[in-house]
C-alpha cells in the first residue's frame, strides 16, 4: 500500500481522480456505442439508396450492357455489384430471417412501382458483416449486390484522446484545488496547535469558513484561552509569592547583620542567599522575562568568555575554559541568553568542579554550544526530567550545592524562546554534556 497517500488531501484527491476517470471512460464508451449504431444506420441508408438507383439503371439498360453498368456503378464503400446468369446470394447462405438486419431488409425491398419490382429476391450473408442480395430481372438474369459494411471505428475519432486528456486534466486540476481548499483548515489547526505549544499567547484562529471549520476553530480558541488563562494565573501567583518574599528576606538580612555570633550570622546569611536564589529563579521562570527583552546582535563568543571569566573569578582559579572562534555574532536577547548559558556553566562548576565550553557553527543554520564536564553525570532516565521545574536529582546533594531546580528549565525556556533548544546527556567514560543550539 505504498501508493496509498498518507494525507487526507492526497487520499481524497486520489479517490476523486480514479472515480471521475472511471465515470468518464464509461460515459465515453456509451457515447461511442451510440455512434456505432448511427454509423451503421447511415451506411445502411446509403447502401440501400445506391442499390435502388443501380436496380433502376440496370432495369432500364440494354441487356448487353447491364453487367458493365453494374460493375461501373458508383456504389457505397464496400459494395460490389454484377449481373450474372445465376444468383450469388445462396453462396453465402440464405438468411432465414432477412428482416433482422436493417441492410438486408432495405435491399430486399428494392423496387418501387409494381412493374419495376424484381421477379424474385434472394438475401444471403451474415448480419452486420456481409449481405448479398440477388434480384432477378424480368428477363431472367440476376443483379447481385454484395455489401460489406466497413467496421465501425468509434475510438478512431481524432478528438477522442484529446477530449479524454483534457477532461482528465480539468478534473484533476479542479479536484486538486477543491481538496486543498477543504483540507486547509485542518492544516491551519495543526499549525495553530503547534504555535500554541510554543507560546500560549499566539494569535488565535479566525473563526470563519464552513460551519464545521468555524466550529472547530472556535473550540480550539476556547481551549487556547483556557490554557493561557491558566498559565497567566499560575504566573501571577508565582510572581506574587516571589514579590512578597522580598520584604521579609530584606528584613532578615538586615537583622542578621546584628547577630553577634559570627558563625550563626554566616549560616543565616547563607540560608537567606539560598532563599533569594529560589525567589529569583521562581520570578524569572514565572515571568518569562526573556520574552520582554528586545532581540539584538550579540557576540556569542565574547558572551561565553565573559561567563567563563566570571566563573573563574568567583572560583579564584581557572575552572572553566572556552574553545571558540574570536567572534560569532547571533541574534539574541543578551541578558536572557547570558542567564541560560551561565546556568549551564554554573551547574557544571557546582557538580563537576569545572567544564569546557565549546562553540561551533554555524552548521545548517544552527550554532551549537556544548558544556562538557567530567562530573558524576546523571542517571539516563533523568535526562528529560531534569527540565521539569523544581525537579532535583538526589535532594541531599542538590541542597548542598544550592540548586533551586529551576536552572535547567529556565535555560531551556530561554533557548527555545530563541528558536533553539537544550539537551543533556552523559559522556563516556564519565561526565555530562549539555548541548545548546541557537539559530545562526
Amino acid at each position, binding site marked *: 500500500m505504498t501508493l496509498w497517500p498518507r494525507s487526507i488531501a492526497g487520499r481524497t484527491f486520489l479517490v476523486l481522480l480514479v472515480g471521475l476517470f472511471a465515470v468518464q471512460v464509461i460515459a465515453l464508451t456509451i457515447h461511442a456505442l451510440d455512434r456505432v449504431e448511427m454509423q451503421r444506420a447511415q451506411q445502411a441508408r446509403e447502401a440501400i439508396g445506391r442499390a435502388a438507383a443501380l436496380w433502376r439503371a440496370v432495369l432500364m439498360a440494354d441487356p448487353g450492357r447491364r453487367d458493365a453498368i453494374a460493375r461501373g456503378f458508383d456504389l457505397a464503400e464496400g459494395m460490389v455489384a454484377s449481373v450474372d446468369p445465376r444468383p450469388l446470394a445462396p453462396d453465402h447462405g440464405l438468411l432465414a430471417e432477412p428482416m433482422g438486419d436493417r441492410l438486408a431488409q432495405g435491399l430486399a425491398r428494392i423496387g418501387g412501382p409494381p412493374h419495376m419490382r424484381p421477379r424474385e429476391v434472394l438475401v444471403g450473408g451474415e448480419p452486420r458483416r456481409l449481405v448479398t442480395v440477388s434480384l432477378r430481372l424480368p428477363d431472367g438474369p440476376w443483379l447481385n449486390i454484395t455489401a460489406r459494411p466497413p467496421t465501425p471505428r468509434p475510438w478512431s475519432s481524432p478528438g477522442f484522446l484529446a477530449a479524454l486528456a483534457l477532461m482528465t486534466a480539468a478534473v484533476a486540476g479542479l479536484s486538486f484545488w477543491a481538496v486543498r481548499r477543504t483540507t486547509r483548515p485542518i492544516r491551519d489547526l495543526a499549525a495553530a496547535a503547534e504555535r500554541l505549544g510554543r507560546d500560549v499567547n499566539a494569535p488565535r484562529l479566525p473563526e470563519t469558513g464552513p460551519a464545521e471549520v468555524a466550529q472547530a476553530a472556535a473550540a480550539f480558541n476556547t481551549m487556547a484561552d483556557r490554557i493561557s488563562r491558566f498559565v497567566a494565573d499560575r504566573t501571577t501567583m508565582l510572581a506574587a509569592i516571589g514579590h512578597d*518574599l522580598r520584604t521579609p528576606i530584606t528584613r532578615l538580612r*538586615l537583622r542578621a547583620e546584628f547577630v553577634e555570633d559570627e558563625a550563626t550570622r554566616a549560616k543565616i546569611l547563607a540560608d537567606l542567599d539560598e532563599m*533569594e536564589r529560589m525567589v529569583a529563579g521562581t520570578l524569572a521562570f514565572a515571568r518569562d522575562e526573556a520574552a520582554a527583552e528586545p532581540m539584538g546582535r550579540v*557576540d556569542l563568543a*565574547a558572551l561565553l568568555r565573559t561567563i567563563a571569566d566570571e566563573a573563574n573569578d568567583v572560583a579564584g582559579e581557572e575552572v572553566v575554559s572556552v574553545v571558540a572562534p574570536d567572534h560569532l555574532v547571533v541574534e539574541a536577547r543578551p541578558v536572557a541568553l547570558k542567564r541560560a548559558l551561565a546556568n549551564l556553566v554554573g551547574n557544571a562548576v557546582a557538580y563537576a568542579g569545572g567544564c569546557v565550553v565549546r562553540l561551533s557553527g554555524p552548521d545548517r543554520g544552527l550554532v551549537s554550544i556544548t558544556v562538557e564536564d567530567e562530573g558524576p553525570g546523571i542517571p539516563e532516565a533523568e535526562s528529560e526530567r531534569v527540565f521539569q521545574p523544581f525537579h532535583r536529582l538526589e535532594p541531599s546533594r542538590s541542597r548542598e550545592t544550592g540548586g533551586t531546580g529551576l536552572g535547567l528549565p529556565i535555560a531551556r525556556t530561554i533557548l527555545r524562546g530563541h528558536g533553539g533548544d537544550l539537551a543533556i546527556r552523559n559522556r563516556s567514560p564519565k561526565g555530562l554534556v549539555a548541548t545548546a543550539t541557537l539559530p545562526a
Partner: protein
Amino acid sequence: MAEPAPHLLVVDDDREIRDLLARFLEKHGFRVTAARDGRELRRLWPGSRFALAVLDLMLPGEDGLSLLRFIREEGRTPVVMLTAMGEETDRIVGLELGADDYVAKPFNPRELLARIRAVLRRVEAAAGQAEPRAATFRFAGWTLETARRRLVSPAGVEVPLTGGEYELLAVLAERAGRVLTREMLMDLLHGRAAGPFDRAIDVAVSRVRRKLDDDGKNPTLIKTVRGGGYVLAAEVERS
C-alpha cells in the same frame, strides 16, 4: 575618623527595613535620617544637606522615579536606588534620570554598604567637576552605555562584559586621555590599595583589550604607560 560622619537619607516605606537599615548604616559610621515616603522626603530635604540618598523606587503615593527627578532638580546629591528584582525598566530609567547606582531587593546589606561607599568616593574624587550620571561614551566606533552597562561594537554587535571589565572600561572612558596608575584604578574600582604583586588590574585590562579587538602587543585603544599605568588613548565623545 576626624571627619564628620556623612549624613545619609534612607527612603523606604517598610518601617522595619527603614529602621534596620538606619541602624546598620549607623553601625558602619554614617549618620542616618529615615523617611517613609515622598512627603517626608520633601519635608526633610530643604533643611539638611545629605551626602547621599538611598531611595526605594516602590513607594506609596509619589513614586521613586518622581522623587529622583525632584532630587536631581535640587542638586547633585548622589542617589543609590533600591529596585525590585527583575524590574529592568525602572532601573534603566532611574540610571538615565541620574541615579548613581542601584541594588536589587532583596539586597545584601554589605553590598549596599559597598555601593554607598563607592559612590561617595567617586563623588569625592570627581569633586563636583565630572558628572557621574548615566552617560554614553563613543570611541573609535565603540559605544559604552552606562545605563544599560553594555558595550556595542562598531558593527552594532553587543559585546558582553563582566562586571569588573565594565567598571574598568567605564572608569577609563570617563577619564579618557588621563593616565591612571594601577593604584588609582585599584582604588577607584575596588576601594583598596593595590599590593605590589597585584595582577587583578592587568588581567582585567587584557580581557577588555581582547573584547575591544585591541592587540595586546601593540594596543591602540588602551595603552600601557611606562611606569605602571593605563590610558584610554582614543577620542571619547560623551553624550
